[in-house]
């Protein structure tokens, strides 16, 4: 083998060795930048799956779901989940206009989630209502043992769906340094509930 052939082999082996030795330092600089920053918000059924959500409910009976938040914002975030309940003709959160419901929150849950971390809690709820044909009057929601009173809880008959439909929903708000307060984070999850008599 000539010196010239040796030189090529030498350069290749040297180059590979240099790359190997420099790789810990290179890994500090050659990191692909994150391009998407967002928050996930989810509601899962009682079996921790996206199925078997409570729908036909009876007054006073307990139902459970899981509520979760995944933080992909690149920083530790301070969230507030507002719990609201409405009938079909009351103000709803709007996915297209990205606006929250104008209804007063029944309760709020605060949580702090580190970047790339998730927060999830089991929610057990029951609705207390009475039938007053042709409508249902919902007067209370119990959420994880906390009793919440509803001021305007009249649910009318929905002829299209043959049901008395109420909507329990959770709006996500986030603390913003810019406004030194909470802003609607343009996300909500909801459950439609048919208030049955028995």
């Amino acid at each position: 083998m000539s010196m010239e052939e040796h030189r090529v082999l030498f350069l290749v082996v040297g180059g590979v060795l240099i790359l190997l030795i420099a790789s810990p330092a290179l890994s500090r600089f050659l990191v692909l930048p994150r391009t998407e920053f967002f928050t996930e918000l989810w509601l899962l059924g009682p079996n921790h799956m996206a199925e078997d959500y409570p729908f036909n409910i009876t007054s006073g009976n307990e139902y459970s779901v899981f509520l979760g938040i995944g933080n992909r914002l690149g920083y530790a975030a301070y969230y507030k989940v507002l719990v609201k309940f409405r009938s079909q003709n009351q103000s709803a959160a709007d996915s297209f206009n990205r606006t929250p419901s104008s209804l007063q929150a029944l309760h709020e849950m605060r949580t702090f989630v580190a970047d790339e971390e998730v927060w999830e809690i089991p929610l057990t709820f029951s609705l207390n209502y009475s039938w007053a044909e042709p409508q249902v009057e919902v007067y209370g929601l119990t959420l994880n043992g906390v009793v919440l009173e509803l001021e305007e809880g009249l649910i009318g008959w929905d002829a299209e769906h043959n049901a008395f439909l109420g909507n329990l929903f959770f709006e996500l708000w986030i603390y913003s340094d810019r406004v030194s307060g909470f802003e609607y984070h343009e996300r909500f999850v909801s459950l439609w509930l048919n208030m049955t008599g028995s």
Partner: protein
Amino acid sequence: MRSQLNRVFFFAVLVSVVVGGSVDVALGVSEEEASTVLAAAESNVVVCYSAVAEADEVGANVTALLTRLGEAGEFLSLGELAFSKGDYDAALTYAGQSQEMLSGFADEAEDLAELAFNEHYMSFTTTILGSVIGVAAVVVGGVVFWFLLKKRATEGAAK
């Protein structure tokens, strides 16, 4: 500076809770009092959140602090709920519990941030320095080895 302010702030809130608590036995808590203490508790949560966010930014493991902050937040939410129901005594109690949970929190977050920064700095310096020394050793060793090889080849050819 901030930790001093935080101590003064916490002390002021503590005094107001204790004084408020003893007065409350005789007079009950007014809406205004409850509202003030809740607002103070809310501000304290925000201050602590800012401290923990800074610690998180420099790579500190803030999971335990966030859990504690979350618990303080829960008390605050219960306080807000009690306030909205007109139960100002309970609102004051919950606000006090929230404050108590965050006693010394900002200082801990600052310490954690400092520790994480130093660790990060040390690890970064060690990595860069190690790589630079390693690469330099390979280059110098390679050049020396190459010249030795070349020298031997030239001497072999001459013989």
